[in-house]
């Protein structure tokens, strides 16, 4: 096991009550250089959970500890703006939409965090952007306007913009959306290699078992706002215990995943 100081993000009993969904008592750990998967169907609350980790949605219960501080949520106390921005610099959320800023070039988007948030010198932020542009295969579009780049480039640009802060954890919401399996896989590898090199932990939300299998070592399956199954990714995907996991695998074509059991159509249709 890893020594405790390797934990970048620990969450326990995290709860949030919202009009449309309740996130129930979620616990997960992110270790240095590790990628954690959150798998679930649309509407299961996996994106909501991710947004809670970045405190875009304020938890109403549970606690969360980062390397800097421990948060306890009781549903009443408000979060100080300074604490919020400090948290988001360490735990950066990347949404599934293309949210590059169109008034800046791709390189300027990436340099924005180091310059405007961390207040680094120009040459330092330039060097960080250079490193990320190469690592994520974006150097050929560095000077491009953001609406001229492809969907995958835009997504990697958003990841680079987040990684430029050198955060502890990066939260990726459906990073493969809109890409074919080959490009999705290649992109996932680029992102993970870059994260590993920097020791950044990743939390990857996806409904796609192949993304989860390729990218993560630990997986939590989310259903109706709660974690229904957790464990090493290979175990979870090979021997799915919960019907929801089985249904997701069956829908994605279970035979693809090594020795995954053949799931009867009844199971798939039942849920």
């Amino acid at each position: 096991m890893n020594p405790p100081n390797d934990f970048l993000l620990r969450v326990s009993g995290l709860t949030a009550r919202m009009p449309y969904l309740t996130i129930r008592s979620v616990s997960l750990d992110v270790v240095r250089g590790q990628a954690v998967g959150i798998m679930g169907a649309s509407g299961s609350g996996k994106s909501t959970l991710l947004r809670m980790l970045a405190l875009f949605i304020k938890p109403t219960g549970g606690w969360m500890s980062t390397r800097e501080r421990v948060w306890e949520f009781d549903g009443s106390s408000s979060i100080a703006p300074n604490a919020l921005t400090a948290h988001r610099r360490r735990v950066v959320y990347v949404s599934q939409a293309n949210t590059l800023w169109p008034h800046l070039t791709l390189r300027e988007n990436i340099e924005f965090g180091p310059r405007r948030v961390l207040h680094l010198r120009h040459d330092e932020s330039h060097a960080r952007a250079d490193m990320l542009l190469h690592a994520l295969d974006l150097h050929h579009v560095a000077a491009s306007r953001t609406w001229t780049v492809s969907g995958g480039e835009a997504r990697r640009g958003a990841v680079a913009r987040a990684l430029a802060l050198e955060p502890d954890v990066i939260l990726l919401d459906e990073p493969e959306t809109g890409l074919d399996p080959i490009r999705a896989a290649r992109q996932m590898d680029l992102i993970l290699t870059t994260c590993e090199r920097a020791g950044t932990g990743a939390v990857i939300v996806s409904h796609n078992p192949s993304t989860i299998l390729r990218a993560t070592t630990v997986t939590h399956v989310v259903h109706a706002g709660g974690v229904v199954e957790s464990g090493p990714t290979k175990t979870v995907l090979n021997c799915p215990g919960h019907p929801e996991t089985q249904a997701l695998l069956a829908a994605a074509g279970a035979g693809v995943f090594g020795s995954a059991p053949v799931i009867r159509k009844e199971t798939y249709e039942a849920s």
Partner: protein
Amino acid sequence: MTPFQILVSATPAFLHGLRVSMTVWLLACLFGTLLGIISGWLLYRVRRRSLIMRMAANLIPELLKSLPVLVLLIWCHYLLPFYIGWSIKPEVTAVVVFTLVVMIAVGEIVQSAIANLPRGEIEAGHAIGLSAIDVGRLIAMPLAFRAASPALILLYIDVLKLSTLASAIALEELLHVTDTVIAKNYVAVPAYTALAIVFIALILPLNWVAKTYAQRLGVMR
């Protein structure tokens, strides 16, 4: 003298008119835009308040919007001095009235630009730990300005054409100069054609610059 010779001899008068028109237009656009940004932002803030507050805040803008600009000019130039007791130069009246016109329209444009700010891009600013003020200053404002720029440019061009209405209060702008030349020489069609050429020469390049700029911004692709 042929009509052409008459027009050529009136060139100094036209240039004077051009100078007056441009001065009024530029000042009105400048002040109107600044005031419009402020009023638009304030009106946007009022949106979620009570109905009474909204009505109070929107009363004057709505009234000004529904008034013909010509009436506004004539009221300000002939009626207002009667009450306040001293006369106002037509230049000042024109700048004030067109500033109001620009302000009201910019206020509308600003409100819709704020209302339609892309949420994801704003959230991305928060997501990298930018303070709320910096998100507004470095992301929301540039994005709102980008979204608003085609509408703003259209408005400026409209106001330039609208500025000819100030001839009704004897402002020596382009239309007034043209009318004077016509009154003296009876060359209506050639003179108005010359006026048209002046406006085309002003507005076409303006439009072209605006379009190129909007394309560079990616607002118009």
